[in-house]
């Protein structure tokens, strides 16, 4: 009981400051009460409408009343934005109608009055859009995030190839993460091997060299790569100075995929080296010589004796690097340009710029599910307590 009491303060703190905010975000992906909160009466009428032709007069009357009220209470932008995402152009129709309504004479029926302001009110698709946007629970954002759409016959299928946005980005994120993981393994394995098999003093020094970048600010490391890779940067300057490249053919190595790859590999490399090193240092140094003395070539001894024993380290390092890579934001945002952006950039874009929070939340949930699955595998197979920080 005492143990739980010690853990409880942090558990409560993390729950309140971290878990609940995440849950709130995820709920936005499927729950969007804005429209039904602003137009409750209209939604009530539309719920009983069969969806054919135009809705009854009661819907027009409710809409007119609630539009005026929403304008007064400054609640309109939220609701009109949500409806606009179901059908483009609706923001303008709603704003125009709400503003003109006060100055328009009543034309006998609300239907005629609204139609007098905008002809769109006589379009059935206007009302269908309002009804769809008004459903408080929706899978629309998930459909959009997976590039799916509802076909005219009601079935769900993929969008045409050329208008898919998010699935290609997810593939790219996965491929880049795999590539970065592989690069980290290729560069990190020999390094870890050298550190683990050096005499103690040198081993400590080499480990410190790996930890310097680990401790150095991420922004500093990203700046360093900009300095090195940009067109007027150190590497291009060196190549031009040595006469390898003509001055007008400087390489574009940054603000594209190359920049993302290089900088991400650099940032994540220590996360590969540390677990590899931990495993390698526990392998008795006598194993390789023993295999060789029994007649194995060094390559065979490495492949059959050393490599299999390092598999836990390879697994732990790769999993960790991959987990960190698929959610990566800072480095791609700064050095990736447009072609090097990953899924996180789109989440940030939909929160900050397009204000499509439902879609941002749906993309976040998909990413979070992927990370959680990998994290659970990690904690099962590797054990979180064994994570190394240096």
């Amino acid at each position, binding site marked *: 009981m005492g143990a739980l*009491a010690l853990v409880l303060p942090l558990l409560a703190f993390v729950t309140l400051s*971290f878990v609940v905010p995440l849950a709130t975000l995820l709920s936005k992906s499927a729950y969007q009460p804005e429209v039904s909160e602003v137009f409750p009466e209209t939604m009530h009428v539309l719920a009983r409408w069969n969806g054919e032709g135009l809705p009854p007069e009661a819907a027009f009357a409710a809409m007119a009343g609630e539009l005026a009220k929403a304008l007064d209470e400054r609640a309109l932008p939220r609701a009109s934005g949500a409806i606009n995402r179901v059908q483009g152009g609706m923001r303008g129709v709603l704003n125009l109608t709400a503003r003109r309504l006060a100055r328009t004479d009543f034309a006998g029926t609300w239907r005629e009055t609204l139609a007098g302001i905008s002809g769109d009110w006589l379009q059935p698709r206007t009302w269908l859009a309002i009804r769809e946007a008004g459903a408080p629970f929706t899978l629309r954002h998930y459909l959009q995030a997976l590039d799916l759409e509802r076909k005219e016959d009601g079935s769900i299928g993929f969008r045409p190839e050329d208008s898919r946005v998010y699935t290609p980005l997810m593939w790219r994120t996965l491929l880049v993460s795999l590539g970065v993981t592989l690069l980290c393994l290729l560069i990190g394995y020999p*390094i870890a091997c050298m550190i683990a098999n050096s005499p103690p003093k040198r081993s400590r020094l080499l480990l410190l060299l790996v930890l310097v970048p680990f*401790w150095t600010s991420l*922004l500093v490391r990203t700046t360093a790569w900009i300095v090195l890779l940009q067109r007027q940067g150190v590497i291009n300057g060196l190549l031009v100075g040595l006469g390898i490249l003509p001055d007008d053919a400087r390489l574009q190595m940054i603000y594209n995929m190359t920049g993302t790859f290089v900088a991400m590999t650099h940032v994540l490399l220590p996360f590969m080296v540390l677990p590899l090193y931990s495993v390698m240092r526990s392998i008795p140094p006598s194993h390789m010589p023993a295999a060789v003395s029994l007649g194995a070539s060094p390559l065979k001894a490495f492949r059959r004796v050393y490599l299999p024993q390092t598999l836990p380290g390879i697994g732990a390092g790769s999993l960790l690097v991959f987990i960190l890579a698929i959610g990566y934001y800072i480095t791609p945002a700064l050095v990736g340009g447009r072609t090097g952006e990953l899924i996180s950039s789109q989440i940030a874009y939909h929160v900050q710029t397009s204000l499509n929070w439902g879609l941002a939340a749906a993309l976040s949930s998909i990413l979070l599910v992927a990370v959680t699955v990998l994290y659970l595998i990690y904690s099962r197979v590797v054990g979180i307590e064994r994570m190394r920080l240096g």
Partner: protein
Amino acid sequence: MRSAPSAGKSLGSEGIPPSTKAAAPSFLGRRLGRYGFNALCVAGFVFLLAPILVIVPLSFNAEPYFTFTEGMLRLDPDAWSLRWYNAVLNDEAWGRALVNSLLIGVASTILATALGTLAALGLASPSMPGRSLVTAVLISPMITPIVIVAVGVFFFYSGLGLGQTHAGLILAHAALGAPFVVITVTATLAGFDRTVLRAAASLGAGPMRRFFRIQLPIISPGVFSGGLFAFAASFDEVVVVLFLGGLEQRTIPRQMWAGIREQISPAILALAVFLIAFAVLALLTVEWLRTRSASAPRSAG
């Protein structure tokens, strides 16, 4: 050959008689393999360190360029200058950013260290129920994609009136920093000999006295390095600040972010040199604490 890191190779070369025809190429191959391996390692270390090292001389550039000018290469004293250091030190914006970074960093570190140490003590106890699940939850802020954390915190905290406040950032950074404390203190506790606590109890020390006079001093290196990790995490955090912070909460990384995105000036390199110095200092401190730690030198973390 003898000084080569892996002992296997030298033994192998003796095991095969060098006079036979078959052995000669394999001997050469082995030698090439050894050189190849060393070259790979050197290349790896160059890749890790060169970007950081290159920044240091470039920050003394007299020109607003990101490349070595001819004058710098000739070691012409006029091509080197401290102008970017002056620019950073005399710019009020960086001063304000430093104050914000320190304020948020120190406050969140205190919170994370206190809560994290307590939690690690609880997790280390054999009677802890649901240990692996609880650990997974406590560590999760560390591996959750930072954009998701930032967006979630932005929506939730703004609703509570914590948007664009120092308090909001402190809370968020404390949650992000706590896992580091939990991990380092847990590692230190793994080497902690609980019999000293029983000894203290048998001599009449109460639980509070046992903790503050016996256990805390012994695990303090782990607590300090956890705190340092938490501070470094907050000191380097930019995404949550981007979403949640306003103009009044601009921190050093936030200011750097703006600098890199808008117009990158060599003043950023001068600042980067300060941050590298901080990183090296923090790293050496943690290493020093590790050697002082009660547990065996390499088991922390």
